[in-house]
């Protein structure tokens, strides 16, 4: 009939999936940093622009207009280059995030389907059927075992409880 710890296995799987979901954004940013090779170039450009701006502030526009203008052009050129670089980096990050999300959701769906396949006919736990009257058939779906708790009902319950728990935890951590 029911495996002794099936309910715990399902609960653990749901917990793991929700945990992974909270760390998805962190994971995607880490991956994008690993993939991105020219991250230092951006910081160099920023430093260069900052240096040029400081130099420009020390030059008087009235006295050395040509130098000032030359520096202004250099700053503009470097700023445009930086903007292009940032744009491409952002696009790459978005792409990585999208891929990570897709992979995660596929993995989650596969896990859920496999759990349902495994416990299709076995309830995760059994209680006396009179305890869960009058909805014993609904709770036992799809096993059909009187008093049993079916995989679908248990998945829904675990998902809701774990989500609630994570929300409470996030709220407390924000406070």
């Amino acid at each position, binding site marked *: 009939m029911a495996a002794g710890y099936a*309910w*715990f296995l399902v609960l653990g799987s749901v917990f793991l999936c929700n945990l992974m979901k*909270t760390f998805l954004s962190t994971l995607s940013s880490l991956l994008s940093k690993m993939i991105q090779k020219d991250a230092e170039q951006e910081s160099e450009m920023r430093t260069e622009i900052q240096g040029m701006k400081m130099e420009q502030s020390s030059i008087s526009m009235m006295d050395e207009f040509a130098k000032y203008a030359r520096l202004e052009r250099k700053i503009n050129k470097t700023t445009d280059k930086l903007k292009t670089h940032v744009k491409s980096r952002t696009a790459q990050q978005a792409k990585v995030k999208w891929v990570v999300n897709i992979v995660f959701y596929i993995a989650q769906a596969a896990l859920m389907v496999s759990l349902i396949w495994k416990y299709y006919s076995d309830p995760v*736990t059994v*209680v*006396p059927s*009179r*305890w*869960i*009257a*009058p*909805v014993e058939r609904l709770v036992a779906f799809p096993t059909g075992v009187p008093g049993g*708790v079916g995989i679908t009902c*248990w998945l*829904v*319950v*675990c998902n*809701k*409880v774990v989500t*609630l728990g994570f*929300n*409470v935890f*996030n*709220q407390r951590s*924000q406070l």
Partner: protein
Amino acid sequence: MDTGGDTSEEATGSSTMSAAQRRAEMRRRKLLLNSEDRLNRIVGFAKNGSDNNGTKAQPNRCRAQRVDIIMSRRASRRPAEPRFHLDLDRTEPWSPSSSSQRPSPFLPESSALSSLSHTATPERRGSPLPDCSEPPPAVEDDVGALRQRLKGERAPSDNISGSPRRGLQNYLSRFDDAMKLRGQLASEKPTQDGGVETEEFDPFRVFRLVGSILLAVFVRMFVCKYLSIFAPFLTLELAYMGLSKYFPKVEKKTKTTVLTAALLLSGIPAEVINRSMDTYRRMGDVFSDLCLYFFTFVLCHELLLLCGSETP
């Protein structure tokens, strides 16, 4: 000599001015007297065709006179008034002669009015002019009289000409709503993307959840042998309904989502949407309580089985 010459020029100038003014005044009075007939013509009540034949030779003169009257009226009365051709967004009253206020653009009367003013505007080049059998119509006065008339009654032809205009107004109002909702959605999206979307736990919500957990433990310990576990849960939910008024009410901010925006644009009133969302939220709360209750019950049951202290 020069001063004498200047004086005579001034006298002729003043007499010319007064003559022009007098002519304008006469024209105005004549138009006011015939406003009813003109109104009928604008609205579309056909006059007999014999009137048209005599004056067909002077269309240009009619047009010039009409333009002249309109320009003189505008200069004298409302110099800053916007043009007629698209009066969907007018914000100031039209009629100077009557004290009628401009009706809301979303009322059916105003759409009929605007459609009629649109069709009756002769100053647009190429627009079909009403017949020149009568003196050139003062469109602005006609519109003012028309407003008063259409406030009370509506001619049958108005419905036909007014419905496309009304449809256009409806479309524009919906478009404005859509743009506003789009702005709201765009402003709410960064807050959702920024972090994990968490539900807010007000004191009553926390009380409910804790109550569900405690009841589940109590039911597993003492009650489940005698009756179904869902009976105490239903009793608890009924008790929560009564206790909710003793807790401070937290105003939940209604988020503009794609679903609510679509429902609003489809014509469903915002109040209905808010009530439905509120009902849905309450059902969600009950479902959360049920899930937590059942989970705690099963957990307690398994722990007791593990401990081996009790057989079901």
